């Protein structure tokens, strides 16, 4: 269907539209008009992504002269694929109605690991090996060497791509990673470099958060994005954590040992060059004296991760004299590693500010702040000079330099914490020195400054006023939408008591009580026998999940569960979890039914949908609080209290409840879908906890369902499923429309739409 929003004709690829999608688009359009930032919360299962894509692309189409471009950030690669698939549907629709002028180029961008088609390179185990393997074949000096010596291996895909030069372009269209690979294979061009090249011409770029937020990656990928671009952070409820992580580094024993090895390797290389070709080192020195920018016009294949500090904070001056010579720099690094390993030998937990740390570093090791700041760039330059291609071997020294640069650059918003062992396992000595960032606004600030419109959206952004404070920005639009439902297709329940009427909770003093564990098992057992198809069960942590599954296994509950459904479990091994998920879906498809055990805050809870028959019921066992004794968390809470006046308890509850909401929110995909959510912990019945849940869940949480025991929940589940199985009118009752066709939309003026949605 197509319709007008003020002056923009919106092309929407479906015959019907939800009223909240329409309102969402109106708000988006206002944001774009105002050229500002916005914050929008809309429940899952209301087609956020397609509404967003179709408005922004239609907006671009209506203003063909503006260089506007959409940068769509997702948290994970599979979400990237999903987004691109939706965009493809939209794009086909627009082409059908507008013809060739609607053509756009949309690409997903990922690492070499996901894009490489060279069979020898991509066979490597992990990302860093793939990156290094690629560099070994494509680095400028390798290729220079290969032109003289035909025995030197090169990557044919990259060579073909280079040969094609400006002819190597992607025709307009929507390309998922898979299609990029297929295209590259067909043409014989390297898809990774092709995609990197096409980013500047693409109308829509979909990539991971880090490509914009993490200065290490953003520095090389997102440098050339226009100011007029619209940046979207989808599923952004965790954006503050991503920002913090991007600027945090930790140093362990293994890191230091590895770094020492790296340093001796570098010193060997330096000696080798001195013996064979000293002029190269001299040339580097001269370049540094002249203060030339380190990576002026590096070939695209040579650069790797960029400076970990934010672009605005990097000094535009020459490298200080004491580290210009390679040997001198090596000495500085040796002293730094020495100092750090001395600090790791501590018995007690130490907490320090970066300023204090730099001061003590300068007095003990004689390294001043300015030298620290340049560590990363100096290392980078040195490795290029030494023509090192196996960069995956040098990650440790890179980490040390990252650390040095960050600690030298930032005085506030960070702290350094040294712990001799993990609090949870005091018997295992495992010293860590962590530089942790507390201020999420630091990493995202350049994004807000650089781009005209930044949209932050998710299904759970409650309380919505907290995010602008955490991220320190001023949205022009900040709204939370509720969901208009045709029927009550979600059924949240709070279960406080087990089948024996005793309270259940994962509170610290109760979680290992055998009665509680048994009650949780009984709950699941009863539910598996009633609920069809897929059930997802979230636990508060891996260790708790492992413990409870072992107990269930010993007591035979697990066996009984297996009589009804197959069981799949998320583990910390990503490959295994992925396969388990794939099998879970097949089990649901085939009608056998399955249960998936997962962990709140885990990878599955982050981004896998359990819509339709893949999840008819979600059980959230416990409240997923963070480990509150963590030193880093305490330091962050302190910082939040001092800087933003956010109370510790409030933040912890907010954080736990957004995770819980995130977990249960994955069951609904559209209004035709239905699902139940059980919050199984007595603490959910307290108002201060519950009220932090997003409003779209709260509005369906009936008072009668606030304090249930297993048998009552079972009864409600039966009734609910019976009700949902009945046919219903999809468009909603006459007084409250939940599905609009084109005519209905045209009939409704803007005014009446608003009344409906508020």
């Amino acid at each position: 269907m197509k319709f007008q929003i003020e002056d923009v004709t919106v092309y929407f690829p479906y015959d019907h539209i939800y009223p909240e999608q329409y309102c969402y688009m109106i708000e988006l359009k206002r944001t774009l008009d105002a050229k500002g930032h916005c914050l929008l919360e809309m429940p899952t299962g209301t087609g956020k992504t397609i509404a967003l894509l179709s408005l922004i692309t239609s907006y671009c189409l209506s203003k063909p002269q503006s260089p506007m471009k959409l940068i769509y950030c997702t948290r994970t690669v599979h979400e990237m694929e999903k987004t691109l698939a939706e965009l493809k549907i939209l794009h086909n629709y627009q082409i059908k109605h507008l013809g060739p002028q609607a053509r756009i180029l949309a690409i997903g961008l990922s690492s070499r690991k996901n894009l490489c088609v060279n069979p020898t390179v991509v066979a490597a185990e992990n990302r860093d090996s793939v990156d290094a393997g690629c560099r070994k074949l494509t680095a400028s000096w390798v290729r220079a060497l290969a032109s003289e010596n035909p025995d030197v291996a090169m990557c044919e895909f990259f060579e073909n791509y280079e040969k094609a030069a400006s002819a190597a372009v992607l025709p307009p269209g929507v390309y998922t990673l898979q299609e990029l690979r297929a295209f590259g294979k067909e043409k014989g061009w390297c898809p990774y470099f092709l995609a990197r090249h096409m980013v500047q011409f693409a109308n829509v770029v979909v990539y991971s958060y880090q490509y914009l937020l993490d200065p290490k990656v953003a520095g090389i990928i997102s440098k050339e994005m226009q100011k007029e671009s619209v940046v979207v952070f989808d599923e952004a409820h965790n954006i503050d954590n991503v920002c913090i992580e991007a600027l945090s580094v930790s140093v362990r024993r293994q890191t230091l040992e590895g770094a020492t090895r790296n340093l001796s390797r570098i010193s060997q290389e330096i000696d080798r060059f001195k013996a064979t070709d000293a002029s190269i080192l001299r040339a580097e020195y001269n370049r540094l004296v002249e203060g030339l920018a380190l990576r002026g016009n590096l070939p695209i294949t040579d650069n790797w991760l960029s400076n970990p500090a934010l672009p605005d904070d990097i000094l535009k001056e020459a490298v200080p004299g004491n580290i210009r010579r390679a040997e001198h720099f090596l000495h500085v690094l040796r002293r730094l590693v020495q100092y750090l390993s001395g600090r790791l030998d501590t018995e007690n937990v130490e907490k320090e500010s970066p300023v204090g740390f730099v001061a003590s570093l300068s007095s003990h090791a004689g390294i001043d702040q300015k030298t620290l700041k340049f560590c990363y760039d100096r290392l980078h330059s040195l490795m290029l000079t030494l023509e090192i291609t196996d960069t995956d071997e040098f990650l440790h020294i890179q980490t040390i330099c990252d650390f040095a640069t960050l600690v030298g650059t930032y005085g506030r918003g960070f702290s350094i914490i040294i712990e001799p062992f993990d609090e949870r396992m005091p018997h295992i000595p495992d010293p860590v020195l962590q530089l942790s960032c507390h201020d999420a606004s630091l990493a995202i600030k350049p994004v807000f400054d650089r781009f005209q419109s930044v949209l932050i959206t998710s299904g759970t952004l409650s309380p919505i006023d907290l995010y602008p404070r955490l991220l320190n920005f001023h949205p022009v639009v900040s709204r939370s939408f509720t969901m208009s439902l045709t029927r009550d297709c979600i059924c949240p329940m709070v279960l406080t008591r087990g089948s024996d009427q005793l309270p259940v909770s994962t509170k610290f003093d109760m979680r290992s009580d055998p009665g509680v564990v048994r009650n949780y098992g009984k709950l699941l057992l009863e539910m598996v026998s009633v609920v069809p198809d897929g059930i997802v069960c979230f636990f508060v942590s891996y260790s708790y999940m492992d413990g409870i599954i072992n107990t269930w296994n010993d007591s035979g509950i697990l066996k009984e569960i297996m009589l009804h459904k197959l069981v799949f479990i998320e583990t910390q091994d990503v490959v295994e979890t992925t396969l388990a998920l794939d099998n879970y879906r097949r089990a649901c498809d085939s009608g056998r039914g399955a249960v998936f055990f997962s962990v709140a805050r885990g990878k599955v809870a982050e981004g896998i949908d359990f819509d339709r028959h893949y999840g008819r019921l979600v059980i959230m066992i416990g409240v997923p609080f963070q480990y509150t004794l963590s030193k880093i968390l305490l330091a962050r809470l302190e910082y939040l209290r001092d800087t933003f006046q956010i109370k510790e308890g409030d933040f912890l509850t907010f954080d736990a409840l957004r995770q819980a909401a995130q977990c249960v929110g994955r069951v609904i995909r559209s209004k035709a879908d239905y699902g139940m959510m059980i919050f199984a912990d007595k603490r959910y019945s307290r108002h201060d906890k519950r009220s932090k849940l997003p409003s779209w869940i709260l509005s369906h949480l009936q008072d009668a369902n606030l304090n249930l025991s297993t048998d009552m929940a079972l009864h409600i589940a039966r009734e609910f499923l019976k009700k949902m199985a009945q046919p219903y009118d999809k468009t909603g009752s006459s007084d409250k429309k939940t599905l609009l066709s084109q005519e209905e939309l045209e009939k409704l003026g803007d005014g009446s739409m608003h009344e409906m949605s508020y």
Partner: protein
Amino acid sequence: MASTHVTKRAKYKTTIKDPGTPGTLRMTFEKILFVPHNPKSAGKLDVEFRYIKGQKHTKEGSNKPPWLNLTNNQNGSFIFEFENYSDLQECRDFVGKVLAKGGEVSEKPTVAYPDEQLSAAEMELRIKLLQEDSELQKLHKQFVLSGVLTETEFWATRKKLLDREASKKTKQRLGFKSAMISDIKPSTDGRTNKVTFNLTPEVILQIFAEKPAVHRAFLSYVPNKMSERTFWTKYFRAEYLHSTKNSIAAAAEAAEDEELAVFLKQDDILASEARKKIRRVDPTLDMEADEGDDYTHLPDHGILREGSKEMTESQNELYKRSLSQDINRHAAVVLEGRAVDVELEDTKAVAEALAQSKQKSSNKGESDGDTSRERLDRLSRMTEIEDLQGPNTLPLAPLCIKDPRDYFDSQQANALRSSGDALGEIKQIKCGLSTQEVYGSLRESISSIRAMGLKEPIVKPEVAHQVFDALTNSISNTKYHIGKNPQESVLDRLPRKTKEELLHHWTSILELLKHFWASYPITTTYLYVKVNRLKDAMSNIYPQLEVNVRKIKNGEVSSLNFPILPFLQLFCLIYLLYPSLIFLA
């Protein structure tokens, strides 16, 4: 038939616990003769085969001695213990043969038809079918033996049955059980520290399927390097070490014993399979790809010991295997389904069959390249939001009714609910059709089939649905309308004997009618004779039916609206039409 008798040395036992009397067992087609070696001991046996009803025997590979248990029709049994399994098998086959004959040949004079040449296999199949289905056997007895139908005619209408049995392919295969049976618990005798594990071929198959490394080890070690018993002892030793969760002890034991290490180590075949499979995974689930795109979590970047992250102990990773891994693996195997279709008797055979089927599936996996295509299609289907879309055509599954009586009975409740009072209307619609109209629509559909060929599905789903609704309603409604309770059918209220008789008449009439109508048009004298025969047979049944009806009428059921009515109507039809039909011929 190879031999007309079998003679074996065996022990005769009156009960299972009886040590048995050694002697000679001789079996002929007619009788079983057992003569003890010691002529003084009691236990001489002379039984005629027609009293023997069935046989049971122990399986090879189980730890029981080779026993053959013959049951007679007074529920007594004769147990023979043989010296070895091959003797048992020979006797078992012989008894099987004789029993199969007893089911039919011995009770009737062998009817030989010169016009059909049946292979032994076909004959056996028919005998087996008759044995399995008592109803069929009754029919067969009634019509074929009395000469109403010939053997060929009888089976001609059941070709499908023969085909299906012959090819065996359509028979539903049993999958794995959902429960983890490979996780068996040992039993102890309570006195010593010895534990005993009971392994069945079923369990072994599952262990092999779930743990390819164990499977591979079995193929290469047994029986050359170690006996099967040692193999399993080692396996359970390793399992025990796992269950203690003491990875250091496991590592130590593994260092000492190379074969034990095979069981303790991570399964390398699984790992490589996982790597292969991950490429075929749905891209919207592929979390491994994220890993490859995640530059924040470079080693040592990001926050290590924040509350949200977990610590893992990474010592002796090699010898650690978690319960979750086992559970995931088990579920995956169950989902893949059973690839092996052999009699589960010999462990070796199981292992080899599994290896073969794996080979096949891996070849297949390499050859089909369109999985990625399929994956994309699935992805695009998944992304569409269903209720914003116009209605989609629903996928069809062909309806296959095996037992019409069961089907219509079970559907009755649904049909009543859905059509409700509309029942009467349907009937009216039917009556309203004139012959011309029916003829016209028939011609129309024939010509359309001629023009376009048969479509899939042949009948529109809506039409088919309507027809079935109407059928269910009219077919079994009497049964329910009379009964007060919808669960109880009228037939259940009749005396059991009457009910059975009725049902039997019903099936025999159906059988006869089938043949009757199939004989039209009567073009040969053979058919003419056959039709006459059938008519006579039917007229024989008619008085019996009437007797029943009278019985019922005298009894508690007085309603005229009774299931027999349709029979009577059918008969009337036949009698009315018969002269004209003959005339037509």
